[in-house]
């Protein structure tokens, strides 16, 4: 009998008697509900705090007899924006609350690529959000396109809010461009937004898989259609943005029609546990980035 046959038989024997917990499904549902409740409890506290802060700001502004409130964005987070028009000026006031204690939050796996790669980073931002840009899905998407993808002057093509905590923002690299990159964001009412996926129809990536564990060199494969057939590939660790990478190379796909690409990208030893493999193409016109597909990955130990 070969080693392979002995191994097959031994593994089958080893687990043949393993029976599963009859209440396993119920346990899964209970845990799903518990994590959702933990999240909702956190949302409720933050919402209440934001409402208080917004009320204070509104009362203060109402006392200004030369001011007329034209829009108050409903408080659903710990940062609100109120726009005031007077006869001579328009003023935007950002109201932020940071002093409310939050209950211990469930630390779920965080899939964000940018700007937040962990729940801790998102929490830190919530505590000190500055102008609060990342509480806005569209602003987050456009800043991702600029900072992470390197698009020169991205514009929003469409924005879709999903029922739970997600949003899809389709961006174009500049107003005149027909090429689109679809960004998936997670965030919702209880926290700031972060991008967890970017895809373009012209670069379909089969390898590496979403959230797979990679080591150097990482094997990449997929199909593409790009100017001069060139797809640029970069391996980035968390914290790196456009112009920074652990390793970069190019692969050749299709130039006039969709064709497969494959290659191995060597990269330096990462200092972070996770990052992304970024596939992008350049403009034939001016060499700027036109579209990208970004795959979230973890690094092997």
């Amino acid at each position, binding site marked *: 009998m070969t*080693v*392979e046959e*002995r*191994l*097959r*038989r*031994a*593994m*089958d*024997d*080893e*687990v043949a*008697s*393993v029976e*599963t*917990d009859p*209440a*396993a*499904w*119920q*346990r*899964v*549902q*209970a*845990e*799903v*509900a518990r*994590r*959702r409740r933990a999240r909702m409890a956190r949302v409720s506290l933050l919402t209440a705090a934001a409402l208080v802060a917004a009320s204070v700001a509104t009362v203060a502004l109402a006392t200004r007899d030369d001011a007329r409130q034209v829009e108050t964005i409903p408080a659903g987070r710990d940062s609100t924006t109120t726009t005031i028009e007077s006869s001579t000026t328009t003023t935007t006031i950002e109201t932020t609350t940071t002093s409310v204690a939050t209950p211990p939050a469930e630390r*779920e*796996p965080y*899939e964000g690529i940018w700007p937040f790669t962990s729940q801790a980073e998102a929490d830190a931002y919530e505590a000190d959000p500055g102008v609060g840009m990342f509480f806005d899905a569209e602003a987050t998407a456009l800043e991702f396109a600029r900072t992470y993808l390197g698009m020169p002057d991205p514009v929003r093509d469409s924005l879709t809010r*999903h029922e*739970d905590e*997600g949003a899809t923002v389709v961006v174009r690299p500049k107003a005149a461009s027909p090429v689109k990159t679809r960004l*998936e964001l*997670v965030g919702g009412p209880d926290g700031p937004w972060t991008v*967890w*996926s970017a895809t373009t129809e012209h670069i379909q990536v089969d*390898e*590496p*898989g*979403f*959230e*797979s*564990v*990679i*080591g150097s060199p990482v*094997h990449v494969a997929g199909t593409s259609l790009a100017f001069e057939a060139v797809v640029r590939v970069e391996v980035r660790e968390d914290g790196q943005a456009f112009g920074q990478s652990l390793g970069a190379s190019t692969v050749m796909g299709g130039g006039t029609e969709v064709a497969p690409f494959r290659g191995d990208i060597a990269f330096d030893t990462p200092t972070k546990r996770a990052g992304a493999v970024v596939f992008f193409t350049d403009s034939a016109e001016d060499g700027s980035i036109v579209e990208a597909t970004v795959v979230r*990955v*973890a690094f*092997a130990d």
Partner: protein
Amino acid sequence: MIASVTLDDAVAGDGAVAEVAALFRAEYRSLVRLATLLLGDRGSAEEVVQDAFVKLQLGWRRIREPEKAPAWLRSAVLNGARSQLRHRDVRRRHLEVVVDRVDSAEAGAIASDEHRRVIAALRTLPERQREALALKFYLDLSEAETATAMGVSAGSVKTHVHRGLAALASILEEER
């Protein structure tokens, strides 16, 4: 507190819960057995697999291609098992905790010497070799499927399988 909805009810429903319930029915047992092979005890294996299903259900909308969900689950179980093993290593180093293994308890009583020797040898292999062998020879996955689950190339799978089998043969031969 345990939720009261049954798996049958969930499968008969609609939406994400029904999709996850159908996957649970199809995959749960084999994933627990896979995790048991990797971890050596059923309790930890069930925890890892249940956690994978919790994450799947909470993140269902992010699964663009539901037909790839089983592959995602396998990857999640492998990642969970790796975490468990690393956690155990740390505990062992600092607390000298001994983890009960399925082969040392009731299963051990019914296991043959041959299978215990093979499984014991399997557990001495490096993590990746052990995973590749379990995925390929227990779940009967193809090299491509194994590669997807492990997050490595098909070439790496071949290497891990080849080296793993060679190491097993060597260990078993030495014991004779």
